[in-house]
């Protein structure tokens, strides 16, 4: 286990939350708005009244234990395969925002052009382990079929792993149909998962038809899923964090139980986007001490179940790339990484509580994520790093700049910033760039340097034909 491990709950706390969740599952149950899921759970022996499913605690514990401790997601380019679990952390770009905020703070509806730009940045950005999912909502495309364009773009223009569509069983089926030919067919991907999809529960204590439909379809193909709850403490859950966690935990356990019932061994990630309600306005607030605590305790809960974890992100309530955006995002990345979260959706780009993406913020968050990844790696202590010989050699009053030990070790020991300004005052004052202005330069350069990774022509044609056919069906 990593040396850097933030803990905010005791083992006894975890057990109490666990027991409360099981009690909720058994006594209150979960409202499951998808008939096939109700059927499957009924067949498995759960008590059902209408759409309310009352879970047997022993069954939940048994099923949750069948989920893998960790797994690998396979990418088009094997160097981008990602291991999800253990001490590893995978960074994933922001997801689902309907607006972009440009440098200077002007907000506008996001477009397909933004989508493609962010996709290229995600592909180029070293800190991003996946190219992501719905990077921003392309408001200028038909809302019924835009998920198809979005999926195709990921497959075509990046070789990193991607996130699938949770737009019902149909969205899941389309995702699998598009990916299977790229990865050697459906049997091949059943062995080696190639996509991970965000499945959200509906707080409090509901599973809706669309997400649950997608869940069952992905489970059938053994593709990975993040099963996540978003409790807003104070509105969609109790104001007390322990109670909010109990609700979150019940929902996630229900989702995982369903996935493992459909297909035991399906790779799942225990997910949370839980946060608090601003009690003055009712707005969600996603970056604060309480949210950081929920994030860290989610990591502890997931570890208790032996399942990889998703929580946190480069999160902020700020509307522009300013001090608030910086300190909030740093807190909301520091907490999950140090607590042992394995999959961090929304790592880069988010402004205004998930409503907006910003290119500049994307760059700033990638920098924060890089710094924290380095922090998590901790300090290697061994003969080489203790450096006794070179200290002896330099002796009192000397310096280490001309030592081979320094030349050899600094590159791995010290992370080099991409964004942070470390110049002298003189150097900085020539242009007096703010973080936002500097970040704008970085992303523009990155975008200019993007290289098309290419994709087999015949495959492109096949995928496009599939998409065209589906679009005709859907818009008919």
């Amino acid at each position, binding site marked *: 286990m990593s040396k850097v491990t933030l803990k905010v709950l005791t083992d006894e706390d975890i057990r109490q939350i666990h027991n409360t969740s099981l009690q909720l599952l058994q006594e209150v149950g979960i409202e499951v708005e998808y008939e096939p899921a109700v059927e499957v759970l009924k067949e498995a022996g759960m008590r059902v009244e209408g759409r309310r499913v009352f879970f047997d605690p022993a069954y939940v514990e048994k099923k949750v234990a069948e989920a893998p401790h960790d797994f690998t997601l396979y990418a088009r380019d094997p160097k981008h395969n990602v291991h999800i679990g253990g001490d590893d952390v995978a960074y994933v770009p922001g997801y689902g925002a*309907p607006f972009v905020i440009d440098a200077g703070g002007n907000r506008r509806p996001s477009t397909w052009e933004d989508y493609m730009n962010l996709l290229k940045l995600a592909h180029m950005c070293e800190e991003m382990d996946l190219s992501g999912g719905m990077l921003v909502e392309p408001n200028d495309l038909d809302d019924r079929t835009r998920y198809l364009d979005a999926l195709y773009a990921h497959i075509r223009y990046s070789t990193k792993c991607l996130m699938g569509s949770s737009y019902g069983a149909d969205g899941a089926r389309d995702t699998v149909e598009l990916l299977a030919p790229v990865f050697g067919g459906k049997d091949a991907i059943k062995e080696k998962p190639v996509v991970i999809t965000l499945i959200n529960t509906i707080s409090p204590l509901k599973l809706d038809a669309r997400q649950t439909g997608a869940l069952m379809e992905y489970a059938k193909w053994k593709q990975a899923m993040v099963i996540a709850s978003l409790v807003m403490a*104070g*509105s969609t859950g109790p104001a007390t964090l322990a109670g909010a966690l109990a609700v979150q935990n019940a929902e996630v356990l229900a989702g995982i139980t369903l996935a493992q019932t459909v297909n035991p061994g399906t790779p799942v990630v225990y997910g949370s986007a839980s946060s608090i309600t601003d*009690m*003055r*306005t*009712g707005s969600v607030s996603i970056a604060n001490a309480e949210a950081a605590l929920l994030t860290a305790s989610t990591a502890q809960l997931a570890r208790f179940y032996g399942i990889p974890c998703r929580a946190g992100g480069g999160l902020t309530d700020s509307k522009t790339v300013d001090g608030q955006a910086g300190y909030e995002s740093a807190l909301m990345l520091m907490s999950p990484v140090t607590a042992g979260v394995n999959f961090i959706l929304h790592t880069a780009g988010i402004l205004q509580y998930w409503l907006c993406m910003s290119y500049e913020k994307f760059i700033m968050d990638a920098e924060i994520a890089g710094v924290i990844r380095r922090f998590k790696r901790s300090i290697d202590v061994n003969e080489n790093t203790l450096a006794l010989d070179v200290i002896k050699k330099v002796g009192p009053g000397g310096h280490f700049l001309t030592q081979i030990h320094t030349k050899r070790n600094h590159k791995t020991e010290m992370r080099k910033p991409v964004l942070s300004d470390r110049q002298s005052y003189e150097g900085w004052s020539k242009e007096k760039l703010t973080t936002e202005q500097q970040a704008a330069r970085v992303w523009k350069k990155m975008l200019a340097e993007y290289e098309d990774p290419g994709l087999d022509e015949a495959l492109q044609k096949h995928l496009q034909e599939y998409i065209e056919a589906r679009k005709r069906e859907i818009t008919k």
Partner: protein
Amino acid sequence: MILEELKEAVIEGDRELVEELCQKVLDEKINPVEAVENGLIKGIEEIGRLWTDGEMFLPDVMMGADALKAGLDILGPELSKAKAAGDAKEGKGKIVIGTVKGDIHDIGKNIVAAMMTAAGYDVYDIGFDQDAAAFTNKAEEVGAQIIAASALLTTTMGEQKELVDYLKERGLRDKYKVIIGGGPTTQGWADEIGADGWAETANDAVSLCNKLLA
């Protein structure tokens, strides 16, 4: 004094006490118009003031609005009689509110509904995942002046346009003010679909209604 007690019970958000007191109003044949105007409404007005001053939080306002509604439900029949006899002032206006079809995000809608209630409107909340027909039928049924539609998804914003079009098709467009809101919506979108107004926060939503009905 029962009027003072009614006011306090609303401010406290004590629904049961409000119900108890309103029952007493009926039993003891106290003037219901008095009970509403100088009791319940005074309470909600005080809440509005405390909220604006930053001394109250959302649960205070929403529980106050709930308590007020519970009271009005009990006094309703007597009140209608009084109204028919011309003894009571008409309310500020009737608003039908809901979240559009395909969308289950309802927190924002609930808050807006509570604020409207707190501002003295008669609010008919039809819930979430509601189509244009549901909004329209309710508005027709209760004789509303305003229809308020909330949407939180870019994929359901189209339902707000659908609502405007639906009213147009039935020749009902001029009968109602249609206002819209929710995370991804903007003034630009409201203009584009021909809605009568848009607001970004619950407070602005109330000001918007005041303006539209002025």
